[in-house]
């Protein structure tokens, strides 16, 4: 075997090894969560309120709280992300300003989530007097998932085939009409993908909402703007601290499995919708 062939084989082996390693880590996490969480799952676990600081009962309000924060964040973030992308692609002409805008968005993506929580709480919670409430959580998560949505929508808008834009332009469509007729329909797959990925990111977030939007127990559905919610993430955190109690740990794994299932459903939906819409757009 000559030297070149040996090197090639070794690099292939290293590549396969790294890929398998990554896959293995993921598989171990999924199998662990599933095997440890599955015993906790039951209809009553999913649809009952938790009792005795989560040691008994289910995770109904925690799941609802997580869904409220996720949906709220997406509803607030989507118009802002869409508006900022359209401003950047359709109205901002200076390449320098575009570059600065992109830099800002990518920087926002790199900010640690606890900083979002801190600044978000100071601004929304203290300055705007929203306090520790689900509204504060929604707004903080909305800012946090903004880069994810922005990048995904931006990519979709930028890759609209030039001939579609030109055909719209040549028919005398104004920028607003061009957006409605060409840009939004042609970038729908990016909008849907970005929103679902943003939701998945919001679903996994704990630090930013821990002290700003959630209460650990004794909370059901929020009755007013200023009420906190309880979420799966914080529920897991609290139960995990009771490591000595096997029941608490089983419930924590169960809540983890439900959270993972929510994210898994979102990601699967993203891939499915994306491939469908892309096929539609490419026709």
């Amino acid at each position, binding site marked *: 075997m000559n030297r070149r062939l040996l090197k090639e084989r070794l690099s292939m082996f290293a590549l396969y090894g790294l890929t398998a390693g990554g896959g293995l880590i993921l598989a171990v996490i999924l199998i662990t969560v599933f095997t440890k969480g599955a015993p906790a799952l039951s209809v009553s676990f999913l649809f009952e309120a938790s009792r005795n600081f989560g040691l008994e009962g289910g995770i109904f309000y925690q799941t609802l709280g997580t869904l409220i924060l996720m949906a709220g964040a997406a509803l607030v973030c989507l118009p802002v992300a869409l508006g900022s992308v359209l401003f950047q692609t359709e109205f901002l002409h200076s390449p320098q300003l575009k570059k600065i805008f992109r830099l800002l968005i990518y920087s926002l993506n790199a900010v640690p989530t606890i900083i979002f929580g801190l600044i978000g709480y100071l601004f929304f919670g203290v300055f705007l007097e929203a306090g520790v409430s689900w509204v504060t959580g929604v707004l903080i998560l909305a800012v946090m998932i903004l880069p994810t949505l922005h990048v995904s929508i931006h990519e979709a808008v930028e890759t609209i085939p030039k*001939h*579609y834009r030109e*055909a719209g*332009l*040549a*028919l005398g469509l104004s920028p607003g009409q061009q957006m409605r*007729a060409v840009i939004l329909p042609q970038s729908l797959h990016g909008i849907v993908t970005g929103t679902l990925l943003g939701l998945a990111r919001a679903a996994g977030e704990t630090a930013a909402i821990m002290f700003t939007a959630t209460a650990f127990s004794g909370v059901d559905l929020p009755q007013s703007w200023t009420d906190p919610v309880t979420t799966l993430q914080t529920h897991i955190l609290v139960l995990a601290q009771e490591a000595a109690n096997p029941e608490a740990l089983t419930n924590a794994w169960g809540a983890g499995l439900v959270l993972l299932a929510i994210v898994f459903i979102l990601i699967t939906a993203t891939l499915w919708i994306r491939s469908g819409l892309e096929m539609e757009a*490419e026709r």
Partner: protein
Amino acid sequence: MTQNSYAIELERVRLSYSGEAVIETASCTVRKNAVTAVVGPSGSGKSTLLRTLCRMNDRVPGFQVEGSVRVLGRDIHDPALNVYELRKRVGMVFQKPCVFPKSIEENVIFGLKFHDSRTGRDFSEKSEQALRDAFLWDEVKNRLGDPAHTLSQGQQQRLAMARTLAVDPEILLMDEPTSALDPKSSKAIEDLILSLKDRHTIVLVTHNVDQAERVADDLICVDDKTVCHKPCQRP
């Protein structure tokens, strides 16, 4: 010939990208209700010249127009001019047929529905007329709801023309509309061009001199960064 007989008038026009001239000087006119062919070698700036007439290059970085470009009696760079209205009156058909991922009928009314803002509008009559004008009606009248991409390339190009005609432009700019088509489809487009000149002024960019001679009343030659000052009218 009086000034009003011209749909387009160019006077000492210089077109450049980031200071580098594509066309150094262009002074010419286009007669109303005539077919004017713009001919010249590849890369000579024919398409740039055509796109300038409906300000399609407005957002191209570094693109600059100097001199006077008058279309339908108005300076198209007048700040008071509504550029969207200009593009509605000066339609453009591109080299590669472009249809949207919609039905045939939706493609025809794609621009029209935005320009006709009356409520409860029925576009079927206008859509039929546009398809008839584009010689496509007989081929698609029983399948108007089918996706437009199921049409052949030649039919797609005529559909793109029908979409432009539905907006009722006074001038039609065509950028090598037959270069991606087979001879039979090209012939159909040429017949269409001849049939449209009674109602529209047509400017056709082509690298095919034979085609220009077949369909054009006037020729404008672009070569070596210059445009013939006066159209060389056919005898």
